[in-house]
């Protein structure tokens, strides 16, 4: 499974793990991973440990998640990104709106 989700006890935090290339092919799965959760989690973690690459449509998907999670008040952490993925996050300056850990 290229997109795996795990919800914390009590449902406050959702962790979404991405495997392989994070691009438009994962669009559907990524959206479905967070869209219909009741109650809505308070915080989100996107684990990029096994993500090999990230393209601009993936950045768009992260923006969709951010919008879903409350826009400027969203609590989203991007974790374990490899050097290539970090570079892309840095060029696009997504570090300014996402917590990159």
């Amino acid at each position, binding site marked *: 499974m290229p997109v795996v989700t795990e919800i914390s006890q009590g449902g406050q935090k959702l962790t979404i793990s991405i495997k392989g290339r994070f691009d438009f092919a994962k669009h559907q799965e990524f959206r479905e991973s967070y869209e219909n959760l009741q109650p809505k989690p308070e915080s989100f973690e996107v684990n990029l440990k096994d993500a090999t690459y990230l393209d601009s449509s993936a*950045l768009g998907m992260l923006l*969709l998640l951010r919008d879903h999670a409350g826009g400027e008040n969203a609590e989203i952490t991007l974790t374990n990104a490899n050097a290539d993925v970090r570079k892309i996050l840095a060029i696009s*300056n997504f570090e300014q709106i996402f917590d990159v850990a």
Partner: protein
Amino acid sequence: MQSPLESLTILIAEDSAADRMLLSSIVRRQGHEVLTAANGAEAVEAFRQQRPQLVLMDAMMPVMDGFEAAQQIKELAGETLVPIIFLTSLTESEALARCLEAGGDDFLAKPYNQVILAAKIKAMDRLRRLQATVLQQRDQIARHHHYLLNEQRVAKAVFDKVAHSGCLSAPNIRYLQSPYALFNGDLLLAAFTPAGDMHVLLGDFTGHGLPAAVGAMPLAEVFYGMTAKGYGLSEILREMNAKLKRILPVDMFCCATLLCLSFQRRSVEVWNGGMPDGYLHSIASGERTPLKARHLPLGVLSPQTFDDRTDVLPMSVDDRVFLLSDGVIDTCDANEQLFGVERLQQVFAANRQPDALFAEIEQALRDFRGEARDDVSMVEVSLLEAAQVSPPALVYSDSGQSSPLDWSVSFEFRAATLKRFNPLPYLLQLLLEVHGLRAQSGALYTVLAELYSNALEHGVLGLDSGLKRDATGFTRYYQLRNTRLDELRDGFVRVHLQVAPTGEGGCLTIRVEDSGKGFDVERVMQRPAAGVRLSGRGVGLIRQLSRNASWSDDGRSARVEFFWEAQA
């Protein structure tokens, strides 16, 4: 779609009358229409006239055998699949193989087994319908594709009218872009400001195809509209960001680098949101200063949180700014390795002829990937002597008959306004209502801009232009400017404009006053009017471009005049 129970028209080609009758009655009992032929030639003729959907063909027949007939029928059928099942008492594998080679799809050994015959007809019918569906879908896709290409042609033609209204053909710009870059989301725009500066934008929308192209239109309109009116990069960026934020879906945005190249001030102002590093190439030192992405792409942040801060770097004549799209560094080789920034820098390092750089990068990409790609955009803009650059004359749509000729107006811009408002576009629009001034709009704007920035930066903000003597100081100067502007509490810049008729023509007097400490007018005036220093160029420019420039009140008040003759 045909229903699975639909009856077929089946041609039976068999020279033995008894066998023919037997087979006909079996096939009819299974619910199909039957045509018969007694040899190959009759079979071909029957097929030509009645187009049966399936053929049962005896291999050995007089006049024309089954193999020859099968070939001719297949030829007549063209792309449509007409299954041919050979009826044969042959048993050697070579003969059976020959049936298939001649175009047969299957064979059935004599004597006939009714159950197997029915099953084979059914299987062949499935195959036949599958082929028909594939053909139908292929044609549909081809139609859609044709339709899409046509739509793209039309969209591109409209867009080209908008995008190429700029100055991409100016002598100091070289660029490389696929003709359909628009549908890769790449966008390249360039235009002169009224002061003769040049604005350049290289943008990259998320995604491909029409969605990526849609945002380009409003972006281009903002870029050209605001550049022509004299707005600076910050204001244009704010407007673009707000507009894209409003119209694009959340997951779409536009990475962009915006440049303002000033030939007179010999500097470049840069804003990079999410694009790969651009490079400022100093020809004298050979050094390439990266122009890093310091901002989020356009269309991500709300207008309240958007950051329009730019960097200003000094340039010398012939220095170049090189920008590229991510197509270059994201090019993958067969093993999914990225071309990357390091390989790009190796190409830079190996470059001897600056003009060959594009070709060398393309060659490096081809060598790396094994083939060329069509979604790479590159642009290089060089700084020319101000005199070598000739901005096109502005085109006005009114006749000038209602031109106002005798008026004056005064403004006072106070601290809170100075922080975030650029009054120059408004002042220029106002002055260009005067028909006689239009011919000198470039000089007018430049002088107005210099007077205003002198009043603001040296007057109100108390910045020392001596700081700009070298490249480090140059950067420091613009950092200080931002900080002091942020902290500004008091101060003002006053602009007085007075237009009066003189004979057949007229005269404009501009006075700009500021709340600063003033300067030693006599000392500054002793400098030569046209130096090549990075600092103090403003005063020289003002004296060259306007008439009777003078300073009073210890430099706190500047006055210039513009004259025009009678209209032709």
